[in-house]
């Protein structure tokens, strides 16, 4: 988190919706297929990666999200130190996974911006710019989906009912945020 520039300057409140950026949060992208990869990850972070599509699993410190049959994203449940750019868990996994050619571990902390949305009108907002059907999604705690919001690739994670974490690539975040600001004002 050294070259950090926030796209969302402050917490914003709309009718039935609160939007803020959660920062800084460690995010790791994991890629791998075989059983050894899964067991090594499981041992080192003390949780199993979700194997069912569009789901996530959580432990005290980390949440891991299913992205594809051989791809996951792990995020820390707590914010990190702003001056720090090293994460112990990344170093550990990198030496156990990447260096042994079991899979790939990539630090995507600065690549993705994590936007937290809270309130009963989240899905009214998301539905206005998204082709995804949220009817089942919004009832399922821990559900994850990758889809398009306003033609932008996003990862949507339902942390709990009426609380959503939205991950978007940093370069798109300002544009997406200005759309959220506009769309949410008319909810």
């Amino acid at each position, binding site marked *: 988190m050294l070259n950090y520039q926030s796209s969302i300057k402050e917490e914003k409140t709309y009718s039935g919706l609160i939007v803020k950026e959660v920062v800084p949060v460690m995010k790791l992208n994991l890629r791998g297929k075989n059983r050894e990869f899964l067991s090594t990850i499981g041992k080192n972070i003390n949780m199993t990666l979700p194997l069912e*599509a*569009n789901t996530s699993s959580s432990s005290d410190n980390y949440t891991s999200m299913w*992205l*594809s*049959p051989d*791809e996951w994203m792990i995020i820390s449940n707590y914010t990190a130190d702003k001056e720090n750019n090293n994460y112990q868990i990344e170093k550990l996994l990198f030496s156990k996974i990447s260096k042994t050619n079991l899979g790939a571990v990539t630090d995507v902390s600065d690549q993705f911006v994590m936007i937290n949305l809270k309130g009963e009108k989240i899905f009214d907002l998301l539905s206005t710019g998204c*082709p*995804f*059907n949220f009817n089942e999604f919004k009832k399922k705690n821990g559900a994850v*989906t*990758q*889809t*398009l919001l306003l033609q932008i*690739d996003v990862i949507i994670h339902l942390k709990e009912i009426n609380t959503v974490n939205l991950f978007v690539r940093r370069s798109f975040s300002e544009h997406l945020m200005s759309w959220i600001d506009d769309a949410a004002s008319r909810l």
Partner: protein
Amino acid sequence: MFIINCPFCGERDQSEFKAGGEAHIERPKQPTELNDEEWAEYLFMRKNIKGIQFERWNHAHGCRKWFNMLRDTSNDEIKLIYKMGEKSPIE
């Protein structure tokens, strides 16, 4: 607009996918033995029929996985979806 049932993620809107052209085109085993015409046939020529066609699709804005689809190009009706690497179930 139509709905595609991704074999990994489930039902999603077509706008999340990219079409990847005709499926089950095999690369010639010995390209050096082909003449220009045969090589061009492999490289460029596609059936592009009106009717039922084997296609490759990619869930580009979702799980980023490729899969095969049997689609009627005249009315976008999807007859069958199966994973990459599997043989075409209908010859």
